[in-house]
């Protein structure tokens, strides 16, 4: 027992191992670069620091993207130089356009590091040649050579010393997600069987969505560091998409059951018990296929049908609630069937993913669509670069010179991926670590005899800084990268080492200047205050939801115009990414200092917004032509009035007053519930005429169910927003 304990005590933590690997890699690259007498060995060190990530897959991914980005930036740089060799301003404008497009794409890209490297390497080469409007071939090649050295050395160390492969993480996350989905479904099914009321559980929903995101990351990482996963990466990606679709179906099911569970769903829908048993069996089978390596039993098609005679006894709202539950159950059945196929594909290298050609569509839509947040970040980066460049040109003897332009570009580009970071905190920590490096620079380095002692110093310094930065900020934080990089710039290890107090203080001043310029640029074109951006995204989501709800009654001729399609795509994109954007800004809010609302209220607002966004997505997808085929004019008119009122309320909540008097809106808001209460009995009769009319009736009932859900969520959000002080919440603060 004592022996086991002492063995455990001797084991190094993962953080210590990663710090050791980084320190060893850094010492090795400096030894090689200085041994070959290469200029600027810092570039190799820079590559090592940036490539060192939480696991092997992430490190290798970054390494590949780094080298591709460098090559692409080199080509771009030479092209711009060739176009504008003699004109400083045109050259700078072309450079700005290049950086702007990189910043724009990086914010929604899967290959963020590629775009980051593309963005700043071009300036790095320009800086290396003294900003003389030429990006020399030699400098470019040297940069690639040293980056490659850093990547190869770190890659070898990461693979050979305590490799932290992502394969285990992938197995763990996929099993975890399947188990969470199974439990989520089980809890919904239990309520159906016991006829208990189902309540939407925001914490469980967020947990499911987060695990989904983790699975996507784990698939990407494991594809890079595991040959087995690389071989069947398409199957794994397909599995990721299908698992996401199952999660969405489960969320929809819970939302629909919140309306219908008390009715006794199994009384009105036939074959629910068999359905439940079958779906639970499917979850168990998929889990077995993923964790146990066996093939899952192929599932047959199953369709839950309503008992028309019994349903006629129900009110309109109840019928609608039942319609939406039925659709959700059938959707879940389809998605679990695809999930089984995707899990089996992994085992037998199947190709069922070929039937889902639109899986990456949302990604490309998001990448290319205009997004105000992304455009804002582009402006911030450009303002930073131009302030620094104009200062370099017109302020005589400016400290740092072109280095300021370069470092501003690097930090601003990284900050554009994580705008919620606290600039002041980052600045303080970076300056603090630079000050801590002073004793080494002034007192230790001049007394070192050779590379062995210098190597020891680099190792100890890097290990300590990396260990504490990982613990305090995490392996992927921007502060960790900066506190590791800046002292390296100050030390500037090379074969002809010089020590100068002026150079050292200049670097500290450069750092201060950079953060001052960033402080100015971060508020242009609009503030990067997390609370304000949170509210802005909430407004944007509500506004887009309103537009999508209202567009249901747009004339057919108008729908074919290109502008109209772009307009709709923009709003669809906003509704799709709303969850990520809002959570993203919420991360930047200091939870202990929220004003104008409580933490609970903020969580409730987010959960309601997500529910509204989900229902709006469903509403948009309902086939209106089938609905219009059966519904009489009176019902369509009710639907039209409902759309108008819901749109008005959403516009009102999104802060657009639009000349709406609040009392008239409140009256309209009460009316909104009665509007949806149309008589559906005659509609149910029509369902028996033909297949087309059956689909039409089903669609109309589904539409009513969705409107019912939206009404409930809107009612709650309306009441909640009246008790919130958004103005106080969005107040600017200094610290």
């Amino acid at each position, binding site marked *: 027992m004592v022996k086991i304990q002492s063995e455990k005590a001797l084991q190094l933590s993962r953080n210590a191992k990663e710090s050791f690997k980084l320190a060893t890699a850094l010492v090795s690259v400096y030894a090689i670069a200085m041994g070959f007498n290469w200029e600027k060995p810092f570039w190799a060190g820079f590559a090592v620091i940036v490539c060192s990530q939480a696991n092997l897959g992430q490190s290798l991914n970054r390494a590949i993207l780094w080298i591709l980005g460098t090559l692409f930036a080199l080509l771009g740089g030479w092209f711009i130089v060739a176009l504008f060799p003699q004109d400083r301003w045109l050259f700078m404008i072309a450079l700005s356009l290049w950086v702007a497009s990189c910043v724009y794409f990086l914010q929604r890209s899967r290959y963020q590091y590629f775009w980051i490297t593309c963005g700043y390497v071009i300036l790095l080469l320009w800086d290396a040649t003294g900003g003389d409007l030429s990006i020399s071939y030699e400098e470019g090649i040297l940069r690639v050579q040293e980056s490659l050295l850093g990547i190869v050395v770190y890659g070898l160390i990461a693979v050979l010393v305590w490799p932290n492969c992502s394969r285990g993480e992938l197995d763990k996350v996929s099993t975890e997600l399947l188990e969470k989905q199974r439990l989520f479904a089980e809890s919904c099914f239990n309520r159906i069987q016991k006829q208990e009321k189902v309540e939407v559980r925001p914490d469980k929903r967020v947990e499911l969505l987060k695990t989904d995101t983790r699975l996507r990351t784990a698939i990407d990482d494991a594809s890079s560091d595991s040959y087995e996963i690389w071989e069947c990466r398409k199957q794994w990606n397909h599995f990721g998409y299908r698992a996401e679709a199952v999660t969405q179906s489960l969320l929809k099911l819970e939302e629909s059951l919140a309306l219908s569970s008390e009715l006794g769903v199994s009384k009105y829908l036939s074959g629910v018990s068999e359905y439940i048993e079958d779906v639970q069996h499917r979850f168990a089978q998929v889990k077995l296929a993923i964790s146990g390596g066996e093939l899952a039993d192929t599932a047959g098609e199953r369709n839950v049908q309503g008992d028309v005679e019994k349903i006629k006894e129900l009110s309109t709202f109840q019928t609608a609630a039942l319609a939406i539950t039925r659709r959700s159950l059938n959707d879940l059945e389809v998605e679990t069937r695809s999930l089984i196929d995707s899990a089996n594909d992994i085992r037998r290298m199947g190709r069922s993913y070929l039937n889902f050609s639109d899986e990456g569509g949302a990604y490309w839509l998001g990448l290319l669509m205009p997004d105000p947040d992304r455009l804002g970040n582009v402006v911030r980066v450009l303002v930073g670069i131009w302030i620094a460049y104009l200062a370099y040109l017109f302020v005589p003897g400016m400290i740092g010179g072109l280095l300021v332009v370069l470092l501003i570009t690097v930090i601003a580009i990284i900050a554009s991926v994580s705008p919620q970071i606290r*600039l*002041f905190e980052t600045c303080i920590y970076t300056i603090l670590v630079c000050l801590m490096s002073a004793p080494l620079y002034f007192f230790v380095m001049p007394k070192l005899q050779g590379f062995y002692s210098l190597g020891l110093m680099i190792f100890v310094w890097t290990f300590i800084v990396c260990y504490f930065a990982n613990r305090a900020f995490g392996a992927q934080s921007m502060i960790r990268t900066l506190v590791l990089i800046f002292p390296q710039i100050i030390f500037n290890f090379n074969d002809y080492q010089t020590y100068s107090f002026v150079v050292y203080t200049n670097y500290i001043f450069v750092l201060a200047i950079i953060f*001052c310029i960033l*402080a*100015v640029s*971060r*508020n242009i074109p609009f*503030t990067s205050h997390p609370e304000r951006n949170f509210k802005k995204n909430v407004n944007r989501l509500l506004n887009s939801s309103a537009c999508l709800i209202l567009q249901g009654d747009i004339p057919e001729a108008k729908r074919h115009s290109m502008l109209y399609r772009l307009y709709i795509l923009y709003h669809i994109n906003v509704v799709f990414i709303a969850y990520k954007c809002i959570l993203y800004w919420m991360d930047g809010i200091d939870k202990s200092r929220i004003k104008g609302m409580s933490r609970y209220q903020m969580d409730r607002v987010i959960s309601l917004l997500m529910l509204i966004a989900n229902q709006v997505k469903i509403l948009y997808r309902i086939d209106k032509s089938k609905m219009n085929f059966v519904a009489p004019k009176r019902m369509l008119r009710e639907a039209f009035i409902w759309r108008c009122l819901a749109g008005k309320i959403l516009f009102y909540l999104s802060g657009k007053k639009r000349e709406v008097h609040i009392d008239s809106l409140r009256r309209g808001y009460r009316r909104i519930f009665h509007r949806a209460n149309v008589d559906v009995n005659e509609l149910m009769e029509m369902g028996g005429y033909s297949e087309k009319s059956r689909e039409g009736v089903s669609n109309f009932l589904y539409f009513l169910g969705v409107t019912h859900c939206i009404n409930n969520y809107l009612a709650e959000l309306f009441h909640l927003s009246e008790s919130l002080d958004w103005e106080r919440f969005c*107040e*600017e*603060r*200094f*610290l």
Partner: protein
Amino acid sequence: MEKIPHDVSVGGFYLSPILVSGLLGVLAALLTARLLDRFRLSRYFANPPVVIISLSVIYSVFFGVVFVGI
């Protein structure tokens, strides 16, 4: 009451006057910012980070001229 520029000795370490006044200026600006936050006055400023920088410069010059000597 203008002071003659001179290095400031802290425990035998000689620090340049601009460094000392800069440090004091930043600390005073942070204190002011904290007070402005406390009394909800920060909402009247369009760009708070620029205000902190400006306050730091004003205080640094003030301390430099009046107390330290730059």
